[in-house]
């Protein structure tokens, strides 16, 4: 008799992913942002195949070709987007720059998220003194401007170990600096959700079963706090890319032999008023579109995962 029930059940099986998916299809702006982001990821991944020139080639940098305007002005179809001051093909450099910027952004946010999630979970679940201590650490970290921390650290590193060593490890150092300086944002958000989830009876039920704190934190509480993480994750990638671009612009980021978008903008800026606007403007436009798409995606996710609209 009891089993008959199942025949009249309506399986309302919408898991989070399908919920997000059905929502994104209905929103044209979100679709556009997603397509742009996917395009950027694809381009970044396939940069070595797509780029018309091999950036590692010795002939890639040729001062004879320096500062050639984009093809629609000069009708020089060798260089589609023109060349920069060192005679490098701008399209190839932008492709590789996008690849670098995205890698740095995503890796830095992965570090932020790992640190922030662990610290936030521990602080929220264990509470008491540990919570106080960790949150005061977060407060201290937040009271410094991230940019300032990064600048001071990078400047010290460069003067201690010299430019040569710095240029060799520039990418890893940038990822670490950006990644380590913004964990409090994740930690605080996670802590707040953990404090709310901790009151739920399923946590008590898990404790009664005898599960350890680690298992309860990661297996039971963490999956219930994923919505805010997802939102911050998207927006933080954009922020990390901006931070990297800003640092590169200030001359503390990627070396000019291996330029990211920020480094390209910085380099091109010097030629802005000598008439070679494209060296600065084209990478800027690339960067702006990427950041805009990321922010749109993040905003849309935040609205869509709002618990008032979306439950379970």
């Amino acid at each position: 008799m009891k089993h008959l029930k199942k025949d009249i059940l309506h399986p309302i099986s919408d898991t989070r992913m399908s919920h997000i998916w059905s929502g994104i299809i209905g929103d044209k702006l979100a679709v556009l942002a997603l397509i742009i982001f996917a395009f950027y990821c694809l381009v970044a991944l396939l940069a070595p195949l797509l780029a018309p020139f091999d950036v590692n080639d010795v002939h890639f940098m040729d001062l004879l070709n320096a500062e050639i305007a984009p093809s629609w002005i000069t009708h020089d179809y060798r260089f589609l987007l023109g060349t920069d001051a060192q005679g490098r093909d701008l399209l190839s450099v932008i492709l590789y720059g996008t690849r670098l910027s995205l890698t740095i952004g995503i890796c830095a946010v992965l570090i932020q998220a790992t640190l922030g999630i662990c610290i936030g979970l521990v602080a929220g679940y264990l509470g008491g003194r540990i919570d106080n201590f960790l949150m005061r650490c977060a407060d201290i970290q937040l009271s410094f401007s991230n940019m300032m921390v990064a600048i001071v650290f990078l400047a010290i590193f460069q003067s201690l170990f010299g430019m040569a060593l710095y240029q060799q490890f520039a990418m890893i150092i940038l990822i670490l600096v950006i990644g380590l300086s913004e964990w409090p944002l994740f930690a605080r958000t996670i802590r707040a959700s953990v404090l709310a989830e901790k009151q739920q009876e399923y946590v008590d039920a898990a404790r009664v079963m005898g599960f350890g704190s680690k298992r309860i934190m990661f297996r039971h509480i963490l999956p219930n706090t994923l919505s805010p993480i997802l939102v911050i994750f998207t927006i933080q990638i954009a922020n990390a890319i901006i931070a990297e671009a800003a640092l590169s612009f200030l001359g503390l980021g990627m070396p000019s032999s291996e330029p990211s978008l920020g480094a390209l903008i910085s380099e091109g800026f010097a030629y802005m008023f000598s008439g070679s606007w494209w060296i600065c403007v084209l990478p800027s436009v690339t960067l702006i579109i990427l950041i805009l798409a990321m922010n749109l995606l993040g905003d849309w996710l935040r609205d869509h995962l709002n618990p008032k609209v979306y439950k379970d």
Partner: protein
Amino acid sequence: MTTPLIQIRGLEKTFTTNESWLGQWRFRRGKFSKQKSHVHALNGVDLTIYQGETLCVVGETGCGKSTLARVIMGLAAPSAGEIDYLAERIDHLNDRQRMFFRRRMQMVFQNPYASLNPRMTVYQTLSEPISFHNPLFTQSQVDEKIEELLESVGISASSSNRYPHEFSGGQRQRQRISLARALSVEPDFIVADEPLSALDVSVQAQVLNLMMDKQEERNLSYLFITHDLAVVEHFATRVAVMYLGRICELSSRETLFGSPKHPYTQALLSAIPRLDSNTAEPIRLIGEVPTPTEKPVGCVFQARCPYANQRCYESSPAMVLQTDGSSVACHAIEEGRLWK
């Protein structure tokens, strides 16, 4: 039936209200003094639960019923007193030492929506404790066990891949899953903290019957916390009446409903709405329920008791065994001031 399973002696639980270290300082009579405020949730509870019985704990909101359940299950540490499981003391054990008793004692919670993890399917919810407590089980053994469990609580095994919110049966199905989870480690003692109060009346009976069936099958003992006296009358072997962190009357179901002795129990029972009788006028208790922020002196019920005298204000009554097998903590009954 007569072996004591759980013995509780002099159990006390005091909560300190959570104030920051700055907030604890008070300015009083010209000087600063540090003080913390406490809530005395349990003030010396003595209770024995026998094997195979259902002990119902009744009492009004805030009398410490849920705290009692949480302290027994080890979710909160007692401030004083002892809890024994089959003559082994368990209240001071750490998590690792307690592991054996986790399998023997389980809990069913009040809210069927909050007590199941919304991100875990029924299968995950059940398989986790089974494989955690039986690390040697193979996958197929775990599956078999889950199927058996689901079948035994009346949920078809085919729905094991659903999430809790996907059950159209809602509350009833969820509370069945909760029960299945508690049974998954094969306990012999289950604490049920108001498992029916979040359910519709039509559903309550089904869950209650399921619990009774399981009790018969597995010789379970229940500590059943409720404020629904109709459920108590249907389900209990013995009943403990709690008031402000103390047990004031403990007797078998028939004795309690037939001849309630403690003034509070009498008032409580007279408040049950009945269709068949129009004889008893409900006893009105005058006065407010005292807040448990100060440790009570004397009988806990003194402020609202119509029979209170000076002795009730001064000394706390002990549980005294009556001729019909019930025990009551009341000076007035001891002295024969109260006829019943």
